[in-house]
């Protein structure tokens, strides 16, 4: 699976950790590092068109393109949506600052590389949708720049 470079490196780091609990603690570390969208970008109530479909943790995604680099912002309204926060924090750390072409290499399957395969159907649908929305922002930025 081709992925944005920094995310591919992170996936490799996760592969080195065989202990499930240790992997979960790594994900929790990211979740605790989660930073919510700053007020300059968005304030509540957040617009529905920024909401991630199929995500029960009520996640939102915003992006900016500056000097050819993308910056992503996230909100997760469910206080118990810790997996969504972890995924959002990982995406921010690994693809914010990259070109739209690099971000567009995202694959929703990265969710299983990070979280393992035993997610509930609902949880995997929400997390893969979050990745797809971020990828969609990049694809849109590419198509707008070519118009």
């Amino acid at each position, binding site marked *: 699976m081709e992925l944005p470079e920094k995310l591919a490196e992170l996936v490799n780091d996760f592969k080195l950790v065989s202990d499930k609990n240790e992997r*979960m603690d790594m994900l929790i570390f990211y979740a605790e590092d989660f930073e919510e969208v700053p007020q300059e970008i968005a304030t509540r109530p957040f617009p529905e068109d920024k909401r991630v479909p199929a995500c029960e943790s009520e996640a939102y995604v915003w992006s900016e393109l500056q000097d050819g680099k993308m910056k992503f912002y996230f909100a997760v309204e469910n206080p*118990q949506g810790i997996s969504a926060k972890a995924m959002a924090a990982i995406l921010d750390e690994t693809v914010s600052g990259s070109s739209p072409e690099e971000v567009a290499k995202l694959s929703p399957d990265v969710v299983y590389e990070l979280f393992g395969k035993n997610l509930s*159907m609902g949880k995997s*649908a929400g997390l893969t949708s979050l990745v797809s929305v971020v990828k969609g922002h990049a694809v849109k930025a590419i198509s707008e720049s070519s118009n």
Partner: protein
Amino acid sequence: MTENKFTSYANSDILVSTQWVADNLDKFSSDSADPEYRLVESNEDPLLYRSGHIPGAIEIDWTEDLNDPVTRDYIQKEAFQELLRSKGIGPNTTVVFYGDKNNWWSSYALWVFQLFGFDQVKLMDGGRIKWELEDRELTKEVPSYPTTEFVANERNDAPIRAFRDDVLTHIESSLPLVDVRSPEEYRGERLHIPGKPNEGALRGGHIPGARSIPWSSAANDDGSFKPVEELEELYVNQNNLERDKQTITYCRIGERSSHSWFVLKYLLGFENVRNYDGSWTEYGNLVGVPIENPSV
């Protein structure tokens, strides 16, 4: 252990309050090989327990611990026995469950325990949501308890679990079914509702004759159960369900319907209520079965 609300339910001791749990934390962390109580957290979100849980609580992961890894089914006796032994649950232990999502997954775990006849169970009213709203203590410390000599019964699904053939017989006998999904899903307008995952059914609608009583009708905003009078009004008076009639609950994958199963069986005292865990992800994919879809 009981709040005034609890004493009016058909089973007045099936629920414990967050306050009772907080007052009895030492009971859950006993080092006995046959402790009086263990506290078990069961969530949908696999990270939640390790990110912080009630002190002394152990985790039972519904997906990894209770499901067969290959077949769409639950574990068998040997695996259940080994699981409970390793978690420090003894022959005389009462297990208090709680979890995320308004106790959906902990109700589901409690239901799976009952497949093995393990009926020393209780549910913490309100689950994680209420505990967190009350700003109560959470810890990351994962406890380890002595292995026990717990001996499991054989699994006996029939009393509380319905399979698809049971459902088809149920329809023919015009017996009541309760669809606990959203009204939009029930009406077949959507295979899934916006903001919720599509969990893979090829057809929309509901099982013929099923009443629509969304699971959330039984819960308050803080995740706790509504008082018995309101539950009685909803299930019995408005929807004409009868305590002595065989009743089947279903949703999409069986977790929300475990919540409603719990309400009917324990809070309202229905005598014969089964959860159809195949639910819409099975029924909505079956070839040739009857479906009602008012939107078509």
